[in-house]
């Protein structure tokens, strides 16, 4: 049985061992909890109840509808921004990229909460409207579907913009000049050349945004009304309100299966090996698109520079507005939120820094985050390293496993993680949280390390090999040193993922180990004092400081090594 021996031999290679280690870890912390939900459910009768109940289908449909609206809206907001960044000179491009990515580095919770300061009865928009006497009494903007959609678009914007930018930056801009010399006007150049070439980015960005939006929980809870219930909220309610774990498990499996099937269909539809040309025809071929194209050409908006400047400025304002509004709100001295505050003081920061609950929560989150980052860096980098050799047996098949945790709704995983951790005594412990968070962070480390390895290329390692370096020497002396920037970025993202994580923490973080997001969450729901914006500003400022320092260090080390400094932040 030579082939069997060969197979066993390839698993015994160093790459095989690494792959095996990473696979076992992800199976234990991610796959097993998902399967444990099957055991926790009531069995077939439970699923029959869920599937035959129209109520669940309604909520599911609402969740899909919200995701679709959010994905489309995010595309509309992100496209001009990514396109502008793609066309801009290096300096302007860097500025726009910073605008695109900065929100990603600040706490998701704080970002969602920030919209409260904009949309609240005493928030920015209403105070502007009433002081200009456009409306007599404040409008109800918060706790509406509109607020949910806007807040969600805001959360999804960086991901979409980066997906679009990644594709657009591959476009050879001379083709646009070529189109102009061949007689295409600005609008036709866009419609016939740029848009079709950016199409793969549109597809990947939209699918990704849609999938991630299916798990929306934090934003609709904070900004939405009762009609904006998502499926994740339903699952959380089963646990926290009714204490019905088996129903929660059944609902989770239900959501997972339905959205999994939908994902398969979407990938099937979009992943067909079509050449861009055919796609372009598909877009421009439909009658509606034809009409739209004619309208765009007629309106000559592509000739209007000012129009696009206004659009870009509006998008940038949209990105900065909530972050900026939070600051004055946190500085108010009254007992409730208002914009602008009548008097300013540092009162709430003072209260925050002297509250032992917040301090302990911060320390807990720091510990969990560091541990989770360490684990996910080791596992994620191992997996990427093992797979850098595409001939490694099984690598292709297993790769999706290391990306999957970032695609499933966090609430589903949280239920599974809770069910798994209770019998092991891991709930409400630093280790339990770190293990669960590491599973969620591994995809980011894995993808960034893979991108980094692709950038390094196989030639360098082949050179080392031809010069006599064995596996260990190659990895330690050549590959890992070159991968340090990617590992650093991956580790940072892993840390932030954990530090900012709320959904798993809702169940796994309790009396003993209360994390910062959990404390923030309780305060955001229960408290109306400016201590919450003060906490949000502090968290965001701390996050931005860490990231800026890291970026600066990375930039310095990279310019010493002389490689293009910005590529790490842009990612794939």
């Amino acid at each position: 049985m030579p082939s069997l021996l060969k197979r066993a031999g390839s698993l015994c290679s160093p790459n095989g061992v690494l792959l095996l280690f990473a696979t076992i870890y992800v199976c234990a912390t991610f796959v097993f909890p998902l399967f444990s939900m099957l055991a926790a459910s009531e069995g077939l009768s439970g699923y029959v109840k869920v599937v035959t109940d129209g109520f669940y289908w309604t909520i599911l449909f609402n969740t899909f509808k919200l995701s679709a609206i959010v994905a489309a809206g995010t595309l509309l907001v992100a496209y001009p921004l990514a396109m502008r960044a793609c066309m801009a000179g290096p300096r302007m491009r860097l500025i726009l990229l910073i605008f695109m990515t900065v929100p990603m580095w600040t706490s998701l919770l704080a970002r969602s909460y920030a919209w409260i300061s904009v949309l609240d009865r005493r928030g920015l928009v209403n105070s502007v409207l009433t002081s200009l006497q456009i409306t007599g009494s404040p409008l109800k903007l918060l706790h509406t579907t509109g607020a949910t959609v806007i807040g969600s678009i805001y959360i999804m914007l960086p991901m979409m913009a980066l997906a679009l930018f990644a594709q657009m930056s591959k476009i050879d801009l001379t083709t646009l000049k070529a189109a102009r010399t061949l007689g295409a006007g600005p609008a036709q150049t866009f419609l016939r050349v740029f848009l079709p070439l950016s199409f793969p980015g549109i597809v990947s960005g939209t699918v990704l945004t849609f999938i991630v939006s299916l798990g929306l929980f934090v934003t609709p809870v904070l900004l939405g009304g009762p009609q904006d219930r998502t499926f994740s909220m339903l699952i959380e309610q089963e646990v926290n309100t009714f204490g019905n774990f088996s129903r929660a498990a059944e609902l989770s499996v239900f959501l997972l299966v339905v959205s999994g099937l939908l994902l398969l269909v979407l990938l099937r539809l979009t992943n067909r090996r079509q050449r861009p040309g055919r796609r372009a025809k598909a877009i421009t071929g439909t009658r509606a698109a034809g009409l739209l194209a004619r309208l765009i050409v007629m309106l000559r908006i592509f000739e209007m520079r000012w129009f696009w400047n206004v659009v870009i400025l509006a998008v940038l304002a949209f990105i900065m507005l909530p972050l900026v509004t939070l600051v004055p709100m946190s500085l108010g001295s009254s007992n409730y939120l208002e914009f602008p505050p009548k008097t300013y003081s540092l009162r709430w920061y003072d209260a925050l820094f002297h509250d032992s609950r917040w301090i302990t929560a911060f320390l807990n989150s720091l510990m969990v985050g560091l541990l989770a980052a360490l684990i996910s860096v080791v596992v994620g980098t191992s997996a990427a390293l093992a797979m850098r050799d595409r001939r490694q047996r099984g690598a292709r098949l297993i790769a999706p496993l290391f990306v999957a945790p970032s695609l499933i709704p966090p609430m589903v995983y949280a239920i599974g993680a809770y069910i798994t951790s209770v019998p092991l005594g891991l709930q409400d412990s630093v280790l339990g949280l770190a293990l669960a968070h590491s599973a969620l962070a591994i995809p980011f480390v894995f993808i960034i390390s893979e991108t980094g390895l692709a950038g390094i290329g196989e030639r360098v390692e082949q050179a080392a090999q031809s010069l006599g370096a064995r596996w260990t020497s190659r990895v330690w002396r050549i590959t890992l040193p070159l991968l340090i920037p990617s590992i650093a970025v991956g580790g940072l993202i892993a840390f932030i993922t954990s530090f900012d994580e709320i959904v798993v923490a809702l169940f796994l973080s309790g009396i003993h180990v209360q994390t910062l997001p959990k404390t923030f969450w309780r305060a955001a729901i229960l408290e109306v004092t400016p201590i919450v914006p003060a906490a949000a500003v502090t968290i965001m400022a701390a996050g931005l400081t860490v990231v800026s320092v890291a970026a600066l260090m990375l930039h310095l080390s990279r310019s010493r090594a002389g490689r293009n400094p910005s590529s790490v932040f842009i990612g794939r």
Partner: protein
Amino acid sequence: MNAADQQPPADRSQGLSIERLGVTYREVTAIDDVSLEIERGEFIAFLGPSGSGKTTILMSIAGFTKPTSGDIKLDGRSILDMPPEDRGIGVVFQGYALFPHLTAAQNIAFPLEMRKVDRSAITTRVSKILDMVGLGDLGGRYPHEMSGGQQQRVALARALVFEPSLLLLDEPLGALDKDRRLAMQQEFRLLHKKIGATIIYVTHDQHEALSMADRIALMDKGRIAQVGTPSEIFSAPASRFVAGFIGECNFLKADTVDREEGGHRVSVAGYAGHVRGAQAAGGSAALAIRPHHAFIAPHDSIGVPATVSDVMFLGELTEYITRLSSGEEFRIRRISDKHDFNPSIGDHVKAGWEWDRCRLC
């Protein structure tokens, strides 16, 4: 130089033999039954258009591509089961593949460190080879602080410092500009004489191969089309592909081909002569005539009737592009300022050639 004084040890290499090598990637045959003996100390060039399989052969020798059939032997022993790091073959990669996080000297020291050479010996050997490639005081620089030519020398020094008996060069001059390429070609030949290692050189540039190599293996579609010294390949191409790839060549359809002693009697439009050598196997008979073996004559002389369709002045040479009575295009090159008969565009002339330098293929 010191390196020149060191005679290669007797047990170094008897040479490399490639035996019926085949490489197939998912149904696509990259290398098809290639056999070649390369003698110790030889400088051989693998030449061919892109996709002809030359780099695949190189990567099979280096150990990065696993052949699907056949064998590669170094000094009579098969190296196929050896991982690349144990083969001890120096490789200069396309694009150099220098380690960007190490200085030039650290790059060069790397193979010695892998071989557990002690520190002081490493230092002396590195500085010696830096001198040899003319980078004496640049050892402390990082690759990105060096020019393309300097990086090239670092890559070469790194592949040579552990004194491999076989050196593989994959389009090593591809990234350099023309002047630097010519200078480096000269240096490679000198270096080859100095170190005495076998050199296998992959290139798609026929001038590079013709001017540098002892022998050329011309590759086409995964097979070796012809192996021979540069002058053999140039003057006795084995096939139409070889004749067309190396130098320029006219191919004319022959009207009659009759076997006769020592070759064939060939006639084109009534113009007949004796062509030496056997006819290449297969295919209809075409007569391969290099432009500089052809001549142009007034219309009342012997030859094939032709009309001048263009005249290109190339400096020392002038090229006449003519159209024969059969409609075929025929190029003639001759020394520019040596002739009394200088036809111009539209003139009716006769085209002839030196029969004993032509080939049938």
